[in-house]
């Protein structure tokens, strides 16, 4: 019985899939454009069931703050790929920006089960 349990634990651990988003406390920097700030972020996709993540920028009360990510707000990150990207924000929004988040985008696959949507938010202090 204990070998069966051990095998199950190994099988389950092999199936683990993860979402990682850093840095925890990013800093706003001046971009190459006047009046526009940028934040450099890194996303690592270890979820083999996810290929797309949506970027979001929010204020203290979780209201959306306008921003731009080159290539669009939904970014394609293949399994085990790390993507570095810049989030561009207007200078006038500097004081409003509080959270920068990425959320996994799930696909329906027609099975009776629960899906996991993961979201990680970094905080601009």
């Amino acid at each position, binding site marked *: 019985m204990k070998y069966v349990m051990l095998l199950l634990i190994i099988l*389950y651990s092999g199936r683990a*899939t993860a979402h990682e988003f850093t*840095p*925890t406390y990013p800093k706003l920097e001046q971009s190459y454009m006047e009046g526009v700030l940028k934040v450099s972020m890194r996303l690592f996709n270890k979820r083999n069931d996810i290929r797309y993540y949506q970027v979001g920028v929010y204020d203290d009360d979780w209201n959306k703050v306008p921003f731009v990510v080159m290539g669009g707000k939904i970014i394609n990150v293949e399994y085990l790929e790390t993507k570095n990207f810049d989030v561009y924000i207007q200078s006038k929004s500097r004081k409003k920006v509080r959270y920068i988040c990425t959320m996994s985008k799930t696909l*329906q696959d027609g099975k009776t089960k629960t*899906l996991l949507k993961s979201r990680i938010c970094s905080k601009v202090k």
Partner: protein
Amino acid sequence: MLNKTTISCILLSFWSLSSYAEDIPITGSVESKCIVTQDTAGVYGNPSPESLTTASASGGVHPVVRYDVIQADYYMAKITHPTSFSESPVLNDVVDFTGSTSVDQVSDASMSAYDTNKVEYDNVTEIDLSVAGSTWFKVESTADYGYDKAFPGGQYQAVVTAECIAI
């Protein structure tokens, strides 16, 4: 008198005979971060016609999500259990969703306090990740259809949202 070609040949032969040891560095850094991992995908069991549940006694599997934090008190976990199906056949009666989130496994014994310190509202559970390490959270979800009405045949999916928010 040695000409240039001879000198070059001598230098080259010395160079080819000598061996070099190179140090190849491996660099890394440990920084504050949160990693959200889907440890176990949930499955709904159908113990009776009007009910779908992730309870293992009813043929289901509870979804388990793991949070890894490198440093204590940097993040808060926010787990939302489902209140609707993201995919289902046409349903013409009310579906009553219930659920909960609890600590399943811990890498540090003091994390077991998360269950007593968690904040619950609506279908959301918030936990301050006050200890560095890994915590596994188990999410329970049950859906009951109408008043003892049988769920129509088909596939059903619901979404659990696991958030990790810097504090």
